[in-house]
C-alpha cells in the first residue's frame, strides 16, 4: 500500500507512451535507455551523494565500444554489451583513486574534466571513432546469434535490462545500507567516526553508475544504428541529471519516473520549438528549488513512512577488561599546525585502560584538535599516536573507529530526519541486531522513551545523549567526548556525569574535553590542561585546578572564590 502513490505516478507517466503507437514505442524504448542511465546515476549522485558529471561521458563511451566492436568487427551483442559496461567501469575504477577522495565541487569538476577529455578523444581520434561524423551502420542487437528486432522486442529487452539494473541499484542502496548512505551523504566525517568506510561505498556506487551508463550507451547505439559525438556530449549528462532530480534522486524509482516523464518533454513542448531545451533547464531548476526530493520523494511523503518497530533491547557482549602491557592510548610528541598556528605542540600523553580523563584549556588551546587527531580526522604533522599498541599514523578515521575509538562532536552531528533509534543503530551497523543494540544504549543514556522521535525535533540535551549512545553503539574501548556538558541543564549534567562514571566503572576508558570545570571535577579522576597546544598540567583534578600556571592561563585568579 505504501508504494501506491509511486506506482500511480509511474503508470500515469507511462500511459501516453503506451497509447501513442509506433512513435510512442520509440519514445518508450528511449525512456528505457534513459531509465537505465539514470538508475545507475542514482547510485552515485542519489545514494552516495557525489555529483558526478561523467555519467553522460560513460554513456558515450559505452556507445562507442558497441559502435566500434559491433559495426567494425561484427561482435555478438552478448560480448559487446558486457564490454560496453566493463570499459566505462574499468575507466571509473582507474580514475577512482585520485578522484573519489575529492569532496563536493572538487569531485564534480574532476569528473567534468574526464568527460571533456573523453569528448575530445571521440571527436579527434577519427581513425577509431569516425570523428565528428561518428560511426554509421551499427547493426541491430543480436544476442547469441538471435536478432532482437527494433520495435517491441528491443523495447522489451531495454526495459528488462533497465529494471534489472534498477533492482540491483535499489538492492545495493536499500535496506540496512540506506541510513548508512544517508549519513555518508550528509556528514561523511560523522560516518567515518562510526567506522563506516565511505571511500569503499563511493567506489562501489561509482562503478555501478559507470557500468549502467555504458550499458545504456550500448543499447542506445543499437537503437539508433549510429554512434556520433552527440552520444558523449554534455546534453546527455544534462538529461540524466534532470531526470533524476525531477523524478526524485533518493530512490531508483525516481530515476525511472524521471526518465519516463522527461523523454516526453520535447513532445509536449513541440509548440515552442527549439526553446524546449531551455524549458528542460527550467524544470530542473524548479525541481531543485521547490521539490528537492523530486516526484518520487513527494509520493513517498504522501505514503507516510511507518514508525520503526521497537525490538526488545539487547545488551552487547560484555566488555572485556583488558590489561594491556602498556597504556591504552599513547601520544608521543604530537604536533599539528594550521598555517601559522600551532594547534598541538609536542603533546605527550599516556592514557591507561580504565581511566576517565578530563581535558581543560582556554579557547583555541588545541582541545578539539587533540580529539580530532586521536580519531583520525586530522593527521598530525609529526609525532606518533598508538592505540592498543597499534600505530595510528596514516590510518583513516573509519579504521581507527574500528580499532575501538568512538567519539562525540562539539555540536552533535546526527541525521535530523531519522528517528533517534535509527541514528544510534548506525553506530552498531553490521554487528548483529543493530536496532536492539541501539535501544539498549538509548536506555543506558536514559532516553529509551525518545527512540522513535525524529532527531531534528529533539532538544539539545537529548540530541547530545543520542550522539553519545551512537558512539557507544560502536562498541569502543575509548570514548572521546568534546564538550558534552555544553547546553545541558545542571540536572542533565549531573545525570550525564553519573552515567559516564557507571560506564567507566564497567571498564570503558573515557576522555572528556570540557569547559565546565565543576562538571569535570565531579567526573574525572585525572585532569590535563592544554595551553597553546602544550600540556601545562596533568594530575589529580584538585592539584590541576590549584596549579598557578592553570589558574593564570585558564581559570583566572578569582576561580577559588567563585561560588
Amino acid at each position: 500500500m505504501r508504494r501506491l502513490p509511486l506506482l500511480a505516478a509511474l503508470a500515469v507517466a507511462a500511459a501516453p507512451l503506451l497509447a501513442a503507437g509506433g512513435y510512442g514505442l520509440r519514445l518508450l524504448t528511449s525512456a528505457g535507455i534513459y531509465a537505465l542511465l539514470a538508475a545507475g546515476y542514482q547510485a552515485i549522485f542519489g545514494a552516495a551523494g557525489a555529483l558526478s558529471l561523467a555519467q553522460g561521458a560513460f554513456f558515450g563511451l559505452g556507445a562507442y565500444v558497441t559502435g566500434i566492436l559491433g559495426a567494425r568487427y561484427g561482435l555478438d551483442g552478448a560480448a559487446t554489451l558486457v564490454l560496453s559496461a566493463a570499459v566505462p567501469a574499468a575507466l571509473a575504477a582507474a580514475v577512482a583513486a585520485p578522484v573519489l577522495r575529492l569532496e563536493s565541487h572538487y569531485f564534480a569538476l574532476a569528473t567534468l574534466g574526464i568527460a571533456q577529455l573523453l569528448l575530445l578523444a571521440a571527436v579527434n581520434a577519427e581513425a577509431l571513432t569516425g570523428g565528428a561524423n561518428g560511426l554509421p551502420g551499427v547493426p541491430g542487437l543480436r544476442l547469441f546469434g538471435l536478432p532482437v528486432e527494433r520495435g517491441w522486442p528491443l523495447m522489451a529487452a531495454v526495459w528488462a535490462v533497465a529494471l534489472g539494473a534498477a533492482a540491483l541499484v535499489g538492492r545495493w542502496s536499500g535496506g540496512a545500507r540506506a541510513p548508512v548512505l544517508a549519513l555518508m551523504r550528509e556528514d561523511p566525517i560523522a560516518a567515518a567516526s562510526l567506522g563506516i568506510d565511505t571511500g569503499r561505498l563511493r567506489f562501489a556506487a561509482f562503478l555501478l553508475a559507470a557500468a549502467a551508463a555504458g550499458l545504456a550507451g550500448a543499447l542506445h547505439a543499437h537503437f539508433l544504428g549510429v554512434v556520433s559525438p552527440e552520444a558523449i556530449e554534455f546534453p546527455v549528462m544534462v538529461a540524466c541529471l534532470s531526470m533524476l532530480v525531477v523524478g526524485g534522486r533518493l530512490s531508483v524509482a525516481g530515476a525511472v519516473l524521471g526518465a519516463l516523464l522527461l523523454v516526453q518533454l520535447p513532445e509536449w513542448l513541440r509548440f515552442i520549438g527549439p526553446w524546449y531545451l531551455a524549458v528542460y533547464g527550467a524544470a530542473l531548476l524548479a525541481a531543485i528549488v521547490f521539490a528537492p526530493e523530486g516526484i518520487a520523494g513527494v509520493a513517498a511523503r504522501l505514503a507516510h513512512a511507518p514508525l520503526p518497530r521497537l525490538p526488545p533491547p539487547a545488551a552487547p557482549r560484555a566488555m572485556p577488561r583488558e590489561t594491556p602491557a602498556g597504556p591504552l592510548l599513547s601520544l608521543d610528541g604530537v604536533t599539528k599546525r594550521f598555517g601559522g598556528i600551532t594547534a598541538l605542540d609536542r603533546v605527550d600523553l599516556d592514557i591507561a585502560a580504565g581511566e576517565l580523563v578530563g581535558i581543560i584549556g582556554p579557547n583555541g588551546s588545541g582541545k578539539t584538535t587533540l580529539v580530532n587527531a586521536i580519531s583520525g580526522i586530522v593527521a598530525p604533522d609529526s609525532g606518533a599516536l598508538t592505540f592498543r599498541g597499534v600505530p595510528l599514523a596514516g590510518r583513516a578515521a573509519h579504521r581507527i573507529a574500528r580499532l575501538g575509538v568512538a567519539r562525540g562532536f562539539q555540536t552533535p552531528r546526527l541525521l535530523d530526519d531519522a528517528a533517534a533509534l535509527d541514528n544510534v543503530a548506525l553506530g552498531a551497523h553490521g554487528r548483529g541486531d543493530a536496532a536492539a543494540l541501539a535501544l539498549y544504549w538509548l536506555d543506558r543514556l536514559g532516553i529509551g522513551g525518545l527512540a522513535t522521535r525524529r532527531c531534528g525535533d529533539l532538544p539539545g540535551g537529548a540530541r547530545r545523549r543520542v550522539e553519545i549512545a551512537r558512539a557507544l553503539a560502536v562498541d569502543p574501548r575509548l570514548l572521546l567526548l568534546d564538550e558534552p556538558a555544553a547546553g545541558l541543564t545542571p540536572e542533565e549534567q549531573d545525570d550525564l556525569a553519573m552515567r559516564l562514571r557507571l560506564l567507566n566503572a564497567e571498564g570503558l576508558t573515557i576522555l572528556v574535553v570540557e569547559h565546565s570545570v565543576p562538571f569535570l571535577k565531579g567526573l574525572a579522576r585525572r585532569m590535563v590542561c592544554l595551553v597553546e597546544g602544550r600540556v601545562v598540567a596533568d594530575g589529580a583534578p584538585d592539584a590541576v585546578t590549584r596549579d598557578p600556571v592553570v589558574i593564570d592561563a585558564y581559570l583566572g585568579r578569582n576561580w577559588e572564590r567563585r561560588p
Partner: protein
Amino acid sequence: MSALQLAADGLALGAAYALVAAGFVLALNASRAVNFAHGDTVMAGGFLSVALAGVLPVPGIALLPLVLGLMALFGVALAAVAYFPLRGRPPVAVFVSTIAAGIVLQNAATAWFGAAPRAGPPLVGGGAIELGFAVLPRQSAAMIAAAGLVYLGLRTLLTRTQTGRRLRAAAQDPGMAEALGIPVAAMTAISFAIAAALAGAAGLLLSNSFFVTPAEGGNFMLKAYIAAAIGGWGRLHGAALGALMIGVFETAVAAAFWQIWAEALLYTALLLILLFRPSGLFGEAAGTRA
C-alpha cells in the same frame, strides 16, 4: 607569426580569462558555492555584445559600460533564482541549480541566435599597430588594455571603497559581518552582480577574435575553475594570475601543435592538480570551502 604577436595574443586571451576567473572566485567566496553557470554567463555576455552591436554601430569598447551594467543586473537575477532560495541547503543543491541556469542560458542562446558561431564587435577596429620593430594585433592590444582597466576598477572597488571592504568582510566571515551590521545577503547579491559583470566583459572582449557559440560555457567554466585551482582556492589575484598562465599556455600550444592538445593538456593538468595539490598550487586562502 612573431613571438611578440604570439605573446600579445596569449596575454589577451589570458587577460579575458582573468576577468572570468576573478568573477568566479568573487562569487565563490561570497556564497561558498561553486557557480556552474559562470561559464554560460561569459557566453551570455558575448551574445549580449553581438545583439548590442547590431543595434548600436559603435566600437566594442563603447559598449563595455553597457555590457557591465546589464550583466550586473543579470547577476542579481541569477542569484535570486539559483542561489538565494537554496541558502542553508547542501552545496550540491546550488551546483545543480546553477547547472540548470546554465542550461537555460545555453539553450535560450541557441534558440535566439542559432548554434553557429557569431562574431561580436571589435573593440577599437581591426588591423595592427606598427611599432617599428614589430607589429601588434590591434584587437589583442585593446583586449589587454580593456581587461587591465576593468581589473584595476575591481581592485579599487574592493580595496578603496566602503562597499568593497564590506564585501570582503562578508565573504571572510559572514557570521561576524552580520553581527557588525553588514547586510550579508545584499553583499552576496553584489558579489554575484560583479561576478556576472566581469564574465560579461570577458564575453565582450572574446566575442570578436574568438567568436561566440552557445555551447562554449562549459569550457570557460572549467578554465575559471582551473585558474582558481592553480591560484589557490579563494584567492582573487592568484586566480587572475592562473588565468593569464592558461591563456598564454593555450595560445602557445595551439600555435605549436593543435588547439585540441591545449585543451587536453589543460584538463589533464586539472586532474593532476586535484590529485596532488587539491588546495591549489599557491595554497588555499581560507579553510575548505564547499
